């Protein structure tokens, strides 16, 4: 059997789009009469995809004809996902209380982890009650079934605060109470413990109904104990609550107001950290300079104007252009900053390790394909040398306006 010989020129001429000066070819047009059509594995695969799931799933039993039109999911994904149902525990068998730090009326990630630990202790029958000083947002999605907003203590008076929490806990009578092992949370936990005369199991790294585990003797041994009334939970040890949002029903608890203690604290003022002298590992906002920048004087002015802590990449530190203690990365400092502002840094893997803990990254670099541009929340492909003076001008204009 002989096949007719193909004529590529004629085929090409047949798909040429007419009426244009520049030749254009419509390659999507099905060739006619040249045997069986070509398979398109990608289209077939796309046709097997199960719609309305974020993670791709494929139904391999379904064979889609290659020339059949691919079924596209018409409904948008937001419409497909119904709003999550709020879980309600009507009559919990027991309560697990959580006293979060909640700085500024917002749960920190450590607080969420403590709520996750409390959820694990409560299981299916129990309920999680959260005791916050003042208002707090987002306690239901974080896993709280009940919510006791206590009155705020004016000024810095940890003893009165502990007395208030202890009184509320006595009235609530939970089975377990969990605190975060942070500066404030650990302090409050110990004050409440000595006030209630109960032992406190500090710095628990494992929280489960069958036992709490903490490191002891310089992390040589670990101590396991059946959960008692009070415990504090170590940071980054327990996962946050990941289930559907909970009810966070306000729970009125009548606790008698503790008698105010003697006024022994005369005053308390907050002294914010000086960004110029704070160690890089503790800094909140780091502006960092890399090999893409030669004008370091302007960089220093930008750092001062933004009130950031200066950092640098390894190249500049090796060259002696920036001090060694400013080096960011695996062989320098691993940051715990909220925001990282990278100027002229392409983002070597060792550098990105130092930035891994930063929540927000702003990058200015000339290379569109740099790893730092990919990592950044706001990426600007532009020469950092011209962006820095523009930043300084803008900041100076704003300062001039506000005066």
């Amino acid at each position: 059997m002989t096949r007719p010989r193909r004529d590529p020129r004629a085929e090409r001429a047949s798909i040429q789009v007419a009426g244009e000066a520049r030749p254009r070819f419509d390659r999507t047009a099905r060739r006619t009469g040249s045997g069986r059509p070509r398979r398109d594995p990608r289209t077939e695969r796309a046709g097997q995809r199960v719609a309305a799931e974020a993670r791709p799933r494929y139904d391999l039993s379904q064979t889609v004809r290659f020339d059949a039109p691919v079924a596209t999911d018409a409904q948008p994904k937001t419409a497909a996902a119904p709003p999550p149902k709020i879980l309600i525990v009507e009559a919990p068998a027991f309560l697990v209380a959580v006293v979060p730090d909640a700085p500024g009326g917002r749960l920190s990630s450590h607080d969420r982890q403590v709520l996750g630990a409390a959820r694990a202790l409560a299981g299916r029958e129990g309920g999680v009650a959260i005791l916050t000083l003042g208002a707090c947002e987002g306690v239901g999605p974080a896993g709280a079934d009940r919510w006791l907003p206590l009155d705020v203590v004016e000024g810095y008076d940890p003893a009165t605060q502990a007395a208030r929490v202890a009184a509320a806990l006595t009235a609530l009578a939970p089975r377990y109470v969990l605190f975060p092992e942070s500066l404030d949370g650990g302090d409050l936990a110990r004050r409440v413990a000595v006030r209630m005369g109960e032992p406190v199991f500090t710095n628990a790294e494992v929280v489960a109904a069958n036992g709490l585990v903490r490191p002891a003797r310089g992390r040589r041994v670990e101590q396991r104990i059946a959960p008692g009334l009070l415990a504090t939970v170590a940071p980054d040890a327990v996962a946050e609550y990941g289930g559907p949002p909970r009810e966070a029903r306000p729970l009125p608890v009548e606790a008698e107001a503790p008698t105010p203690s003697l006024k022994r604290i005369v005053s308390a003022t907050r002294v914010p950290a000086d960004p110029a002298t704070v160690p890089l590992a503790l800094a909140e906002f780091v502006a960092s300079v890399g090999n893409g920048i030669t004008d370091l004087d302007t960089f220093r002015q930008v750092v001062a104007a933004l009130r950031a802590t200066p950092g640098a990449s390894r190249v500049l530190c090796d060259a002696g252009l920036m001090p060694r203690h400013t080096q960011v990365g695996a062989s320098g400092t691993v940051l715990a900053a909220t925001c990282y502002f990278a100027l002229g840094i392409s983002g070597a893997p060792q550098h990105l390790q130092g930035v891994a803990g930063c929540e927000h990254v702003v990058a200015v670099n000339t290379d569109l394909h740099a790893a730092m541009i990919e990592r950044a929340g706001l990426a600007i492909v532009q020469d950092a040398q011209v962006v820095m003076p523009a930043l300084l001008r803008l900041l100076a204009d704003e300062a001039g306006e506000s005066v």
Partner: protein
Amino acid sequence: MKIVVLLSAGRHPVSGAPVLPRMEAQAIRIAASLGEVLGLHAGPDADAVREALGLGLTRIEHIAVAKGLDPVPALAARLAALAPDLVLAGRRGQGGAESGVVPYALAEALDLLLIPDVVAVSGGGDTLTLDQSLGRGALRRVAVRGPVLATVHPDAAAPLAYAYGKARRGTIERVGAAATAADGPEAAVEERPYRRRPKLVKGAPTGGSAAERLKAATGEGGSATKGRLLVEPDPEEAAREILAYLRQIGVIADASKPKQ
């Protein structure tokens, strides 16, 4: 001003050798600049705290308390007799349970004001000013009246250098202890060799692939997925965008608000 520094028998976290915990050495440095300092230790053996004599103390009082007994009643009785203006302690012990409850129990027993996590103390006479660490280099400056118990944070100034001659000249006095009854039976604690637990990866989806966990660990899964990309913008526009972004996440102050 009369200052007492509470000393504990620490163990080095790596070698297990007896060592004075660093925070107590820092407490000695804070106290040495303020006035007359006395070290106070309750425990079976005074040799454990002899190192403190070389780090700035001249005199240590040792209350013999049998091993395993609660030192708080003995310490509270001695502190009540001494009536110091300032008591300094480390925020945690080192080498024991490391729970850090002893200062709180003492403050409760003596009805003292307790200020935790102090990095510096200044003043004298009637009021004392204590700088309290809030983490990330921020401080709270607290002015207090009357006797106060403060625990020392590791961010305090580094301890004084060890001096062998001073360590030889210093004295350790043994003071009589009131007989303390043993506590009730402790809760059953099971001890095992420490096992490191896997580090929690923030933002990693449960049941996700290894590549997704790696992305979460290097931070590429977080803000990068919804990041904004501006290619070759005008420098002025880039500057405006950067400032707007920084203000939105709250790391720099708003332009409309006047500066203090």
